[in-house]
């Protein structure tokens, strides 16, 4: 009985790992396309939109199957429930990466626009958070997950700084308004990816410790 369940969980692990790698690479692509002004890469990302959606459905189906057929409890139950949540977050991150690519193409329509320097800093941090939390998930590393939660506020600060620069830019060069608006959105997208990475970290902590840390002061400095 245990052996059958373990086999199913191994399969699920492989699925979610494959999806993690794919989403991480999409975010990487979206950031590179933006910072290196590479419209071909951005377009390729937009065209490949279905890949992660299919993976999400596979993971969800697998989870529902395990719940129905094996009725897992304790650590097994927490693992399946966490995977279902992380699955959602990964799918949302993938959507956001595609939105970033769409905004990026609109930014390129304004060849003279200079991107705020913080945007590259942000993209580095967000990618690092995502990589760290997905690695932590594989190693069940709660400490690393806590660090990811902490890093979220730095991204929030950078996002505010970009907004300030966008406002200034609009005052100085109103003719760039449309492109600047896209910059603001991209910055907001990066900030959302960091939020999803934080969600994943919180789910990981729950999975390991059985304690729901969401909305608790211990790991969030939002409130």
């Amino acid at each position, binding site marked *: 009985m245990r052996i059958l369940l373990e086999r199913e969980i191994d399969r699920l692990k492989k699925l979610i790992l494959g999806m993690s790698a794919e989403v991480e690479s999409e975010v990487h692509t979206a950031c590179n396309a933006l910072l290196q002004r590479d419209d071909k890469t951005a377009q390729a990302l937009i065209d490949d939109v279905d890949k992660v959606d299919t993976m999400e459905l596979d993971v969800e189906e697998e989870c529902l199957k395990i719940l129905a057929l094996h009725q897992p409890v304790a650590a097994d*139950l927490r693992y399946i429930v966490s995977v279902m949540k992380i699955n959602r977050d990964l799918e949302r991150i993938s959507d956001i990466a595609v939105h970033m690519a769409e905004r990026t193409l609109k930014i390129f329509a304004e060849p003279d626009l200079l991107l705020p320097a913080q945007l590259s800093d942000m993209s580095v941090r967000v990618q690092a958070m995502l990589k760290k939390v997905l690695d932590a998930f594989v190693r069940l590393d709660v400490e690393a997950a806590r660090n990811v939660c902490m890093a979220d506020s730095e991204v929030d600060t950078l996002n505010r700084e970009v907004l300030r620069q966008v406002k200034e830019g609009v005052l100085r060069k109103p003719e760039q308004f449309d492109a600047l608006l896209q910059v603001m959105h991209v910055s907001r997208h990066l900030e959302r990816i960091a939020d999803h990475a934080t969600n994943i970290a919180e789910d990981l902590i729950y999975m390991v410790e059985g304690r729901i840390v969401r909305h608790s002061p211990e790991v969030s400095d939002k409130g």
Partner: protein
Amino acid sequence: MTDNGQVKIRTERLNLHYGAFHALKDVDMAVPPRMITSIIGPSGCGKSTLLRCLNRMNDLIGTARVTGRILLDGKDILAGGTAMTSLRRRVGMVFQRPNPFPLSVFDNVSYGPRVHGELDRRRLAGIVESALRATGLWETLKDRLNEHALSLSPEQQQRLCISRLVAVEPEVLLMDEPCSALDPIATGHVEDLMKNLAQNYTIVIVTHNMQQAARVSDVTAFMYLGRLIESGPTKDIFVKPKEKQTEDYITGRFG
């Protein structure tokens, strides 16, 4: 133990030996009132032995020797001078195989009250009706009260055995694998009945079916090799047990 911390039965350093065999080891367990407490654990860990202690059924086993205390509403039932008939009326037992007496439905349910001195036919009829209502049998059996109990279906027989207990107005119902002889549908009915009964009675159930423990009980106690390893709110035990042995057992890693 529960939100308000009330306790109906508490065992303190309860030990039981069958001859040289040490079957219960320092069991400290608290059973909250008007809730369902389930006892789970691998075969031979002492579940039935512990359950039988709670109304001193082990007294009937010559080799069994018990030490420690078992407090029912704060009074030690192991103390000398405990009246056995009164104890077994207050704490009744339902067994794995339905065991109605080879008598009519009416005589089965009225048996206990008659033993306890109720001989008025009209009052007995009232008791039988309300005991059968409590277990959901009244509508089906009200015109068949003189039928032989052994002609009923297994589920009805098990309900009848519960009615027989309810008729003497007990406080605690002990159930040792009460559904293991029933099919899944009948099991569902009896689980539903247990939930209803828990509004008025304290129920302790031994079950091998972990999903049943998870479904019906408010508190779950896990035993292993004669020891009570962990006990707590069922949702905690099945989502985040404290002890590794509990986790290993409920996730099937044992042995």
